[in-house]
């Protein structure tokens, strides 16, 4: 809250400013979160809606503590995380390798594109039940649902990234008698990495959707199931806790990819002094 006061007073009389403008900018994303929380509190205080429809933040906090203590949240979170990670790895693996193959052999694009585009343009919720019929109501169907939703963006990004590799640098590698592996490792991989990582940000957040949609359909366990069962019991605070947990997973994954970019693409931060 002290930071909010800071913005209102651009020219403080005292010479010692507690935080600099740079720090202020870094903290600015927090302001929107704080504003949202305030709005929420305001709506509940005004009692516009009954508490079982819009519960106050404190009730949600309490539900969070309970769900944590009883082990309910951790149990379902674990299920969702496992499905999501396995699906993410599967979808990425297939997307990256088929994408690379298509980028290298354009004939494959003509052959595969009708199937791939048809697959992509169908909403995931529509064929999730089909995947359950085929792969059962266990974790496999959710892993496959996640993989399917992750597949397309990683495929497209890989094709774009590998095709964008500089032809001049390819010439250079050829003139140096580079082996196909060397060309992949020293040219294609580092050159494609920025675009592939940008695509991974999309894929990672989609992976949460994939796993949860799968859980909605089968019922049994996972955060998707927890949302449905809490709603059936009119436990709105628990619904909100579960939804926020999904948001937290997506945000953490996204931040992890940003961290990878920071580490692996350090060269992009360099420029002429």
């Amino acid at each position: 809250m002290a930071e909010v006061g800071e913005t209102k007073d651009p020219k403080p009389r005292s010479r010692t400013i507690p935080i600099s403008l740079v720090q202020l900018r870094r903290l600015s994303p927090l302001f929107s979160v704080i504003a949202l929380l305030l709005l929420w509190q305001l709506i509940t205080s005004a009692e516009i809606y009954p508490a079982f429809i819009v519960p106050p933040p404190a009730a949600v906090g309490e539900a969070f503590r309970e769900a944590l203590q009883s082990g309910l949240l951790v149990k379902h979170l674990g299920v969702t995380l496992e499905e999501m990670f396995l699906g993410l790895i599967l979808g990425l693996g297939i997307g990256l390798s088929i994408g690379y193959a298509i980028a290298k052999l354009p004939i494959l694009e003509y052959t595969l594109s009708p199937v791939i585009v048809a697959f992509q343009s169908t909403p995931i919720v529509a064929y999730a039940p089909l995947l359950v019929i085929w792969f059962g109501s266990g974790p496999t169907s959710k892993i496959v649902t996640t993989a399917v939703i992750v597949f397309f963006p990683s495929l497209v990004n890989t094709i774009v990234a590998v095709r964008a590799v500089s032809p001049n640098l390819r010439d250079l590698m050829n003139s140096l008698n580079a082996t196909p592996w060397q060309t992949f490792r020293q040219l294609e991989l580092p050159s494609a990495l920025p675009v592939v990582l940008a695509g991974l940000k999309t894929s990672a957040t989609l992976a949460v959707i994939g796993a949860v949609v799968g859980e909605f359909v089968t019922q049994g366990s996972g955060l998707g199931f927890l949302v449905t069962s809490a709603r059936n019991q009119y436990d709105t605070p628990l619904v909100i806790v579960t939804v926020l947990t999904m948001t937290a997973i997506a945000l953490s994954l996204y931040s992890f990819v940003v961290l990878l970019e920071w580490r692996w693409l350090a060269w992009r931060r360099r420029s002429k002094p």
Partner: protein
Amino acid sequence: MKLSLRELVVDFRTPDQGRLPALGPISLEVLPGEFVCIVGPSGCGKSTLIRTLGGLQPATSGSVAGDDLPITRPLSTLAIMFQDANLMPWRTVIDNIALPLELAGVDKARRHEAVYELLPQLHLQDFALSYPAELSGGMAQRVALGRVIVQRPRALLLDEPFGALDAMTREKISLELLDLWRKGRQTVVMVTHDINEAVLLADRVVVMSSRPGKLVADITIDLERPRAINMIYRETFLRLAREARAAIDPPDS
């Protein structure tokens, strides 16, 4: 290394399966240690000539040879430098220069030893760990030059290597190239669109016609070495430059 072209012809395939003659027939012999500049109107197949000599572009007919052995793929003794610096933006200066050694399987310690030895000659000693985005155009071309020299090639193929630089930087870096060449005595074939640059650097200036490129003049440059920038005001220099210019645009055409 002696480089020879015999009745070389290169055609490009057009999308409708036709053939577009790009080069030749052309015959040319470059002696070991000789510095030859190729000039000609744009689109005359100069770059195709370099790419064919470098083993990147197959000949349609005729032959290219290095020391009488046919060149059908890139040779490690023959290094190419392109018009753009063509550096890898994710590699530092030393790692860009060391790339050919790395691909040849030279270990890191020996790679760095070889590169650090070169840096002072290239005036890059303060930029060893910089990234290409931090370099000026001239410095980037020096890195590209270093990447060619580090291979200890016996012949250099330079495709308008300084074409993208401003005139001052260009003059300076061409004379530095002459210095490096005097020490290494490699065979050099350099494509340029600048007649003065060609006359100042070369032992021979070869003039090509427009597409398909054929040899229209082969001018021996009898200026003494080492060359210096003030030679461009000499009578001999001006005569040679005029001769080359006349071969590119015949006065009667």
